[in-house]
């Protein structure tokens, strides 16, 4: 099995070769919060948080909800009960040569989570899952979008969150 791709090195070299002088400053934190699970998973309410640009198809036509069309950055809600077949992603920042985003559960595992609730492994899912559109500002993510997602999670009495970056 080949080593994992070193994306930080690879992208730095790539963009330097494309004439970008300043390498991207990847987010880095010295202190990472941690809390142990306070109760069994079977008593936990879960949610899903993703940057996969997941969106809801208009049930009566193609294309995504226009309200999201021009947003850059910002947190938005995907109601948990949205039928899986209405979810899709127009994200382009993935390895388009190797794979595709045709199966929402390969990056936004909503149906798999529902199965875990049915099995009793989790108690429930919160009524809202969360998306965050790519922002070109770590400051914005830290000060605006992430706190908003956290606020919504607390409002929904979420115990655990599965995060899926794409």
């Amino acid at each position, binding site marked *: 099995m080949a080593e994992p791709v070193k994306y930080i090195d690879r992208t730095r070299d790539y963009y330097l070769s494309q004439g970008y002088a300043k390498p991207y400053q990847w987010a880095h934190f010295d202190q990472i919060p*941690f809390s142990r699970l306070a109760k069994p998973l079977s008593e936990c309410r879960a949610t899903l948080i993703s940057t996969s640009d997941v969106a809801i198809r208009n049930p009566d036509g193609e294309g995504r909800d226009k309200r999201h069309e021009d947003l850059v950055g910002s947190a938005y809600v995907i109601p948990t009960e949205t039928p899986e077949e209405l979810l899709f992603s127009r994200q382009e920042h993935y*390895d388009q040569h*190797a794979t595709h*985003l045709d199966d929402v*559960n390969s*990056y936004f595992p909503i149906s798999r989570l529902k199965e875990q609730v049915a099995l009793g492994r989790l108690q429930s899912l919160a009524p809202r899952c969360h998306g965050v559109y*790519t922002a070109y500002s770590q400051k914005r993510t830290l000060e605006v979008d992430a706190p908003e997602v956290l606020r919504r999670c607390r409002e929904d009495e979420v115990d655990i969150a*599965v*995060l899926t970056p794409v």
Partner: protein
Amino acid sequence: MIATAKDIVQNCGVPRLLFVDFPLGNPCGVPFDINMQSDILESALGLLETAEQSGDTTVAPYVWPEGEAWKETIFTSEQPFLEGEAYDNWMAAKQRYRNQKKEER
């Protein structure tokens, strides 16, 4: 967190990481492989139960079924990450963000 870009996530730091060594886009398993997706989610839930300290990482025991050639070519000049329309959309999104920031000021 379930993620495919191990170095980026570890450089940032997260409480718990399930690393899935797949191409960017499918951290939660091969498309339409329900059994694998269930197994990956279960590994992530298991990590929630067992992790003892910040940064604890588990590696999902899967190899991309179509081989690992993608690892050689991603982000190289032979195979740019974003091309054509995707590149233009990316640039347009960055510009929209700059405009948005200006309006907020």
